[in-house]
């Protein structure tokens, strides 16, 4: 560790992994509910489990992004963090706010939570992924602004690199677009339209900037390839991400009462969205092949390559699968969407955060890389989680295709619940794959505690 203040990242990463475990446990619960509908009912209804599952994902990824920024920025900027104290303070604020929100979901009925937190003053709750009480949303804005201030001051008063500037743009975009979560008009179409300004412009816009810059940083570190080469790749990847992804928002505007031209625009531009992800794959393999050194942290290299491949498959291929309007007409809002969502989030954002953790955590613990045994554990966890996620995606895709056929495509369409009963085998297999994922996650956590002959101390 070149700068002492990089160490604050450790707190963020530990919290991220802890919340990740919670996310997966609730995923497994929902998997059971898909098989046996009354599981944990009425104590934990499906919608509550789902809120916990998705909100924990978002929160732990945000912890991961913030931790990554706190680790990377001092080193890139060649100075200590502007305020390590503020970083630690905001960590606790965010953790407590996040924990209270999750407990609120679990301990009281959602309507009661809305009442306690005075949702009526500024109603923002009850929309997918934005279920947090308004007061939590305000907390998120405060944490995000303090974080941006801290990171921004460090970047702007230090050495500016392409990586830090792209990261800063992505993080600023994240904060700005979140503000749309406070806009909740009565008009359902308007509500839906601008809801996507948070959701789409995050995951198919500014988050890609964050992801690409984190990946570029780790690749520079583990391959020693010339910064000029990597920066050129970085620019062209994020250029394609924005060129395709901004108007690509239109693939969400096919069936919500918005004008017909979105069918064309959304189809064409979102068909281009796989390109930046494919370039990321080319980029990662290219620079690893041209590496100037063999970094002892082989696990981090594996995660970096895995991120590029899985992001392309999950976001790129599975996204394209159902993004053209004539296809989406049948697949919109089915298990196909769920399949895509799972692999895209895992491949792009979960894996890039785990890549950063894999690279930086050993250094923060005083080694250039983990000992070999620990790395073997970590690589096993990589394969267990990644392969099981591929199967989760395939089983959900199978379920989705059958659902589309039975409920929407065949001559005599069946009702929703009748169709669901016929998908049972896919849901059972998905749950088995989900349990393997959980096993992989346990191996991942064990990898931090495995002892062995340590790699050179730095």
């Amino acid at each position, binding site marked *: 560790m070149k700068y002492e203040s990089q160490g604050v990242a450790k707190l963020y990463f530990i919290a991220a992994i802890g919340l990740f475990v919670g996310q997966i446990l609730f995923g497994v619960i929902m998997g059971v*509910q898909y098989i*046996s*509908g*009354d599981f944990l*009912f*009425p104590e934990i*209804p*499906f*919608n*509550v489990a*789902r809120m916990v599952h998705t909100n924990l994902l978002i929160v732990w990824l945000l912890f991961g992004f913030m931790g990554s920024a706190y680790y990377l920025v001092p080193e890139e900027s060649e100075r200590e963090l502007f305020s390590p104290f503020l970083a630690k303070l905001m960590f606790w604020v965010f953790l407590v706010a996040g924990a209270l929100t999750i407990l609120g979901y679990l301990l009281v009925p*959602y*309507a009661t939570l*809305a009442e306690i937190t005075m949702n009526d003053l500024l*109603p923002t*709750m*009850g*929309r*997918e992924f934005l279920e947090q009480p308004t007061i939590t949303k305000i907390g998120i804005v405060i944490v995000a602004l303090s974080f941006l201030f801290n990171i921004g001051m460090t970047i702007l008063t230090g050495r500016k690199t392409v990586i830090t500037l792209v990261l800063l743009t992505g993080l600023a975009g994240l904060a700005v677009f979140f503000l749309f979560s406070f806009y909740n008009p*009565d*008009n*359902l*179409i*308007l509500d*839906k*339209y601008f809801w996507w300004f948070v959701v789409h412009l995050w995951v198919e816009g500014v988050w890609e900037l964050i992801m690409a810059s984190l990946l570029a940083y780790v690749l520079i570190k583990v391959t020693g390839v010339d910064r*000029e080469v990597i920066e*050129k790749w970085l*620019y*062209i990847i*994020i*250029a394609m991400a*924005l*060129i395709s992804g*901004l*108007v690509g*928002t239109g693939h969400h*505007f*096919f*069936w*919500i*009462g*918005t*004008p*017909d031209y979105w*069918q064309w625009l959304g189809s064409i531009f979102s068909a281009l969205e796989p390109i930046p992800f494919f370039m990321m794959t080319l980029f990662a393999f290219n620079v690893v092949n041209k590496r100037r050194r063999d970094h002892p942290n082989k696990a981090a290299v594996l995660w970096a390559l895995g991120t590029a491949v899985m992001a392309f498959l999950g976001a790129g291929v599975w996204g394209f699968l159902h993004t053209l309007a004539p296809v989406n*007409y049948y697949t*919109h*809002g*089915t*298990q196909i969407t769920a399949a895509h969502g799972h692999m895209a989030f895992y491949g792009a954002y979960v894996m890039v955060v785990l890549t950063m953790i894999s690279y930086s955590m050993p250094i923060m613990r005083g080694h250039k890389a983990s000992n070999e045994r620990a790395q073997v554990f970590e690589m096993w966890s990589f394969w267990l989680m990644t392969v099981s996620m591929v199967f989760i995606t395939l089983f959900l895709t199978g379920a989705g295709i059958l659902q589309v056929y039975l*409920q*929407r*495509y065949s001559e005599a*369409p*069946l*009702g*929703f*619940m009748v*169709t669901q009963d016929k998908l049972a085998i896919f849901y059972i297999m998905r749950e088995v794959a989900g349990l393997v994922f959980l096993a992989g996650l346990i191996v991942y956590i064990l990898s931090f505690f495995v002892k062995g002959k340590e790699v050179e101390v730095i």
Partner: protein
Amino acid sequence: MRETFTKGMARNIYYGGGVFFFLVLIGLTVDTVVSLPKTDNSENLTEQVAAGKRLWERNDCIGCHTLLGEGAYFAPELGNVYTRFGESTEAIKGFIKSRPKNGIPNRRSMPQFNFTDEELEALAQFLKYSDGIKTARDWPPNIQG
């Protein structure tokens, strides 16, 4: 990448492309918002419907159902439930009211929300309003949602 394609060129594509397409998105957004009254059923967007939407949100209905295809995939699409229930708000209200408190063994079941009559009416009116939104190609593909 070859030397003829420089980092400066890549940077310019990023800034130029990013700004240009962001402006395109804003332009399209303005056009969309302006043309919404043609499809958005706003003539039926009453106070009661708005109250129904708040109830819909306060009970996180989107956590199980889809509405115009967006939401969770655990329970039926509700953007056309008014049509599916024979254009009857009474049928919708009856269904919501009749959910057993402790669920149905082994089956998925909607929770019992203990709504007042006034609340039930607002919710049903909100679903009726949603059904009245003119979606492209009259999505969903059929009455089953």
